[in-house]
């Protein structure tokens, strides 16, 4: 396939734009967070407080010390990677690279990022639960719920947005397209 043909393929154009947005985000993120370190601290502390509040609903053994959330003898330190920001950046790149209108994109970002954050909160709760009650399975759950399913979660939310928001609002395509 020639370069021109590849460029006219919307799927390859999407991948190219996705990589471009990702490059911009990945170079810009360290620069931005260095200048506004308070935002990162706010996100990590906020996530720790939410995790503790949710755990407190189901257990008396939950406690919090700064960004350290404890459930019984097990604790997790909420760091930058636990805030779901990396997942959000990948999702943002996928939404922005998709060829649709800005309203759809704003809906995608407005719904998708909170959904990914909720997934992330749930993931940490599950990890705390396994760390406390089934520590022998913690390694599996940690790898499963972090690297193994990270991109699957992002892809699922992205496809959900395409099918429920973008395509839902489009008129049927003419035959032969």
């Amino acid at each position: 396939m020639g370069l021109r043909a590849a460029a006219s393929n919307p799927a390859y154009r999407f991948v190219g734009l996705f990589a471009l947005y990702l490059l911009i985000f990945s170079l810009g993120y360290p620069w931005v967070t260095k200048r506004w370190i308070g935002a990162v601290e706010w996100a990590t502390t906020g996530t720790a407080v939410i995790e503790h509040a949710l755990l407190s609903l189901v257990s008396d053994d939950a406690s919090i010390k700064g960004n350290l959330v404890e459930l019984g003898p097990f604790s997790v330190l909420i760091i930058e990677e636990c805030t779901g920001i990396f997942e959000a950046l990948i999702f943002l790149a996928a939404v922005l690279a998709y060829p649709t209108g800005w309203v759809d994109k704003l809906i995608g970002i407005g719904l998708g990022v909170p959904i990914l954050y909720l997934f992330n909160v749930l993931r940490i709760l599950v990890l705390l639960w396994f760390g406390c009650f089934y520590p022998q399975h913690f390694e599996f759950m940690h790898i499963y719920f972090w690297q193994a399913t990270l991109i699957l979660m992002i892809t699922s939310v992205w496809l959900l947005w395409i099918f429920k928001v973008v395509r839902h609002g489009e008129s049927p395509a003419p035959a032969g397209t």
Partner: protein
Amino acid sequence: MASRLLRLGLSFVLLTAVLTWAWIQWGSAAYDRVLLAVAGPALEWIGVTRIADSPARQRFVSFVPFLVLTWLTPGLSTRRRAIGSLLGCALLFLAHVALVGVEQWSLSKRRPTADPFSTMFPAALFADSLPFMLWAAIAQDRLREWLVRLVGPRTRPDSGG
């Protein structure tokens, strides 16, 4: 439709769990050996003599989401799945070697940024998204179908992105 989606979702969960389990049991250790055997000279050249447990190594499991996406996306031919899996795994391998190299670079004094994180972060984000990009390329017929239905075959300019 709903039951089909449910079946697909369950397949994703189960296959991911099985592959992750296999990865933890023997895949990870075996992959370390393969990486050192195949890319040893290149890694030694950049100062890596052993694969330490690090953010780069933790990302080696990216084979799992890539294979799950490639194998379970409906409508792909067996040939495309097979060739895509082989090529994708080869590219993931190269990306892992590069990631280990960038990690080593980020910890050295020759790094281009003031702190290791700023050097490592772009590589880590790309490594995290690579399974998605490879899948999008392999499943491009399906993706193109969804995209063409939306935007038409170059009949009007993109409205954004």
